[in-house]
């Protein structure tokens, strides 16, 4: 009977099982980093911990090793023909040495005129397991990191004594429990270069039918990043990240010469998380139309009033003006205030206070794998300091509960909540957002919000409300159009505090008529503006991206990621957010990117 009951229970499930796509076949475990390699490296770490010492100088009190193996396939194409095709496979060992004590050590300090001295050192390991060589690499790399740590500690103590930096009572290193988990984490195999090339050729060929466009590119990536963490506290743990992505970018030119861009970007764990080829072709066509529309759109002028951020526009707003401020790691000592701004820090003194509108709550959850049935790539088991990932409620009903922390605390008693992801100046890992969920209470439909933004604008005496649906991403659209002289000028005159320009922005008039506009630039959005979010939508947008290490300005100056190539560099991140209606923001028109019109007609036009 028991068996029969089980059978009966299974039967109805068969048809739905049949519809599910077959799971991706798992890829192999690493052949470069085997248990023998880890044993060899750990042995050297322990030897260094017990014996490494320069007479008269402090010994290391903590050593951590991060081994990273990256295998990545990248392909790009234009107008149906391949532009580049590349595999990269490498393994490296990153060593961090701390001298002093957990109360005060060398870390999180920027040595004046020697920012590269930060107690860390990195060296490549072979692509095949060779314990003797791995041990040798660990020996030399730890030696280099130790010497740097001593210099850094000396400079930090001296700077504090002289009062040239403001020291803190917070310890330098928060305690944590050692984590052990040495079984390999297997992930699906990479999509091959041939598979990627076939996809980008097909998609990029769509743009052949749109001669009005100035340029277009399609790129695809598939990569695996295996990591191993070893510390002298006893942590020995491994984790693996896997992502695939597709990027499409197009450029047009308005009659007044302004270059206009739009892009489509999707990432998932594997290609199966991405839209189907048919859907991607439809997106390529939509992208081409969008750029053509932008080229004809009127130039924006000044606006000060309510702004509705929809879909990817809301994601962009969260990414550009909120996410960086959720980190709880103290700013590196020795950094000047202008440089420190890249690390946010607007909320470090505000735990327990209201920091955003009461209708908003914010959770960061690196353990989440999907949201609303869509894959999230920002997650992991173990953070960059070997600490187990934790779900963190950052804001509840507008009140700041806590921040995202690493093992570098901002106050006594603070511990890591497993969000060490970004290495900062001074060598310390910084707590930062991973899978960030912005949640709103009492949401309305998107359509209702559009009505609301118009009504709010009308109440302020304006003819229209403003809706932003996408921000620029210089990693994708940083086309090399500028002269050297213009780039130098841009460095001098660009306000780096501004959010990226809006790519898709619309004036919305009473009655619902929409007008696409170009050259839309938000003024600086201070953290306090988030208290003025007056409404959210019921619809949520789930969006994955790779947060580049470079600023948007740097990417613009250097023509995007890796010379126009597919962005496969950066830190995996996900944002889930409703549409957000802000009560009042300042927005101006921008004539940036105006180029002379072509003298020669495009071929085949």
């Amino acid at each position, binding site marked *: 009977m028991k068996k029969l009951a089980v059978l009966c229970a299974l039967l109805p499930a068969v048809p739905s099982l049949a519809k599910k796509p077959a799971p991706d076949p798992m890829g192999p475990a690493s052949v470069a980093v085997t248990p023998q390699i880890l044993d060899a490296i750990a042995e050297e770490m322990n030897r260094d911990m017990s014996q490494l010492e320069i007479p008269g100088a402090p010994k290391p009190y903590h050593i951590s090793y991060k081994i990273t193996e990256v295998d990545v396939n990248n392909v790009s194409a234009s107008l149906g023909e391949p532009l580049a095709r*590349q595999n990269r496979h490498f393994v490296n060992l990153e060593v961090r040495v701390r001298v002093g004590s957990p109360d005060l050590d060398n870390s999180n300090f920027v040595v004046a005129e020697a920012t590269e001295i930060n107690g860390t050192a990195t060296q490549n390991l072979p*692509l095949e397991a*060779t314990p003797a060589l791995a041990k040798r690499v660990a020996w030399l790399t730890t030696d280099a990191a130790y010497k740097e740590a001593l210099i850094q500690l000396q400079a930090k103590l001296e700077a504090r004594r002289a009062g040239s930096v403001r020291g803190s009572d917070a310890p330098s290193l928060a305690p944590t429990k050692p984590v052990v988990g040495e079984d390999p984490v297997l992930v699906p195999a990479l999509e091959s270069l041939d598979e990627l090339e076939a996809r980008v050729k097909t998609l990029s060929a769509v743009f052949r039918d749109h001669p009005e466009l100035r340029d277009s590119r399609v790129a695809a990536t598939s990569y695996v990043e295996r990591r191993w963490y070893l510390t002298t506290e006893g942590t020995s743990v491994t984790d693996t990240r896997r992502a695939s992505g597709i990027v499409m970018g197009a450029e047009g030119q308005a009659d007044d010469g302004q270059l206009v861009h739009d892009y489509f970007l999707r990432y998932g764990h594997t290609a199966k998380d991405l839209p189907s080829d048919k859907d991607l072709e439809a997106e390529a066509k939509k992208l081409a139309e969008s750029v053509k529309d932008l080229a004809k759109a009127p130039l924006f002028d000044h606006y000060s009033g309510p702004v509705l951020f929809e879909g990817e526009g809301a994601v962009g707003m969260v990414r550009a003006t909120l996410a960086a401020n959720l980190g709880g790691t103290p700013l590196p000592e020795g950094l000047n205030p202008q440089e420190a701004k890249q690390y946010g820090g607007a909320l470090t003194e505000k735990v327990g206070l209201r920091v955003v509108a009461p209708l908003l709550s914010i959770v960061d959850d690196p353990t989440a794998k999907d949201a609303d049935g869509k894959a999230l790539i920002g997650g992991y088991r173990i953070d960059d300091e070997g600490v187990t990932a934790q779900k963190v409620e950052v804001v509840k009903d507008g009140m700041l509960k806590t921040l995202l922390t690493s093992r570098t605390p901002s106050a006594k008693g603070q511990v890591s909540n497993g969000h060490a992801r970004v290495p900062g100046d001074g060598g310390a890992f910084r707590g930062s957002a991973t899978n960030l969920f912005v949640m709103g209470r009492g949401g309305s439909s998107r359509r209702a919000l559009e009505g609301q933004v118009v009504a709010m604008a009308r109440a302020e005496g304006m003819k229209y409300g403003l809706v932003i649906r996408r921000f620029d991403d210089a990693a994708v659209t940083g086309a*090399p159009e500028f002269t050297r002289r213009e780039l130098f000028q841009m460095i001098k005159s660009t306000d780096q505090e501004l959010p990226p320009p809006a790519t898709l922005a619309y004036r919305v008039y009473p009655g619902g008529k929409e007008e696409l506009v170009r050259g839309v630039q938000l003024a600086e959005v201070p953290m306090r503006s988030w208290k003025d979010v007056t409404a959210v939508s019921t619809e949520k947008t789930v969006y994955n991206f790779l947060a580049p290490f470079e600023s948007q300005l740097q990417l613009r100056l250097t023509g995007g990621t890796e010379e126009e190539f597919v962005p496969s560099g950066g830190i995996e991140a996900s944002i889930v957010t409703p549409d957000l209606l802000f009560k009042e923001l300042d927005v101006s028109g921008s004539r940036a990117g105006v180029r002379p019109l072509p003298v020669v007609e495009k*071929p085949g036009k």
Partner: protein
Amino acid sequence: MRTILLIGLVACGPVAGERTPAKPLPPLPSRATALHLDLEPVPAKIVTTSSTPTEDAASDKKSPVLDTLAAENTREIEVLKAQPEGARAYYLAHQVIETRVVSLEAEGGALTVDTDDTQRNLDTDVRIGSPALDNTHPISDDTNGLNSPYQRRGMIPFDDDKESLAHAVWLDTDRRYHEAVNALAYVRQDQATLSKHSKEPDFSAEPAEGYVEAPTKLEFDKALWIERLKRCSAKALRGSATRGTCGVVFQLNTSYFVNSEGSKVQQSWTNAQLSVSVGVKADDGMNLSRLEQRFGRTPADLPADAEVDKMISLVTTDLDALHDAPLADPYVGPAILEGRAAGVFFHEVFGHRVEGHRQKDVTGGQTFASYVGKDIAPEWLSVYDDPQIVTLNGIQLNGFYRFDDEGVRARHVPLIDHGKLVGFEMGRNPINGFPHSNGHGRKSAGYPPVARQGNLVVEASKTVERKQLEAMLIDQIKKQHRKFGMIFTDISGGFTNTTAFAPQAFKVNPVMAYRLYPDGKKELVRGIDISGTPLVALQSILAASREIESFNGVCGAESGWVPVSASAPSLLLEKLEVEKGFIPPDRAPILGAPSVRKP
């Protein structure tokens, strides 16, 4: 604009700064007062094989890419040359370089690098104005190079598809055209405010060329090479070395060049490079390394295992010796530069300074501009550059090419003839008395071409046996009352300042430097650089050996990296200045190397 010249793996190169008025050149010692030694009238042995630019033409192997480029080039220039004055183009060139680079490297017996990438790059040269004055003319106060083209990779798809190729050409031409129009406006403004400026034109007239070389193939057994490199690197990691690597780089290059004068040139070639490298940090923190490289036209030209074993033995023995060698003090006195070291010395000290465009650079030192026809070296010494040489004394030379990157056929260029300066390496940037290119306009993808070296050859019509050169050095030590002389057998590279802002000096980095004592004893030393000024250094040459050695390498300068060679006899110099080199503040590893076996 700052420029670094590099050869091999170490920096060589003029580097500029702010512009200051050029100082008068130092007077040269006359031959009457210069020291003379009796040399036998036996020339240094040089046997070469050459290939003229038009050999091996295979017009039936023309790629459709060449025709697509030419058609789009013609379509573009027709419109651009009809633009109003100030925006009118008079010349347009397109070059596509497709390069497959295979890199394999092993360290200590394990594979560390395994890449195989192919890229296709498009470079566009559009000139606005006229050959007499165009957008490329240097402006007077441009230390950041703001008026130069922005260096970036011109993307162009693979395959032969006309539509996508033509689109890429159009887009890059549009970008470069507007950049050039903008640059010319600044040039004209600059000319209007200058009291004096260069009268030489910016661009020379050259005949159109047509040449098609059949596409070649890159053939090698990857698995075999990986095994060889693993074996090699396992052997190299021995003695005092903490790093022992062996690597190869194989390249397959295909270049398509068209211009608005009607040139159409297709070239295809492979090259291969093998490196054996070891390194260690000395107790005083000095990074010691020893590198041996071999170059060939194809992977099959690289040395067999027995020769590789000799390379390993050489670098590891040298490294062990360097590790124990004392630091040297500054020194001025007689010295021998052995063959390959002499070649690198000439490349740095002389070769870069006779690159034509430097003679008209208003911010440059123009070291040799006024010395044409005058004695600058011993009368028995001649120097030329000839990219057509395939082998010299049986060694393949790395600086061989048929047509340069401006579509001009490579030519033999006499530079010093029996001690007199007679010529310059020229691209299409003319200088006073040298109105035409001799096929030395070179670059790597993404850079504008300038005059560069190819195969530099130093000839001596009077020589002595190498052994005798050492006896002559001892004589000089005694005559000059020195405790010892110096012998340099290997130079890794260096830099030479060619701008007027800084002293017109050079600095080269010897790897293997020995003190030679009057009793014939040799002592290896380390931590020194050779420095000096080029004119004095050339006049200081006393004698040359009969034997010639060739250095193959890759040289970096403002137009990117180009393959080069330098061949020279060993040279005895009356005086050479040696100064302390930079040693970073560091120390040897604190702990000894880890044990490989568990106790």
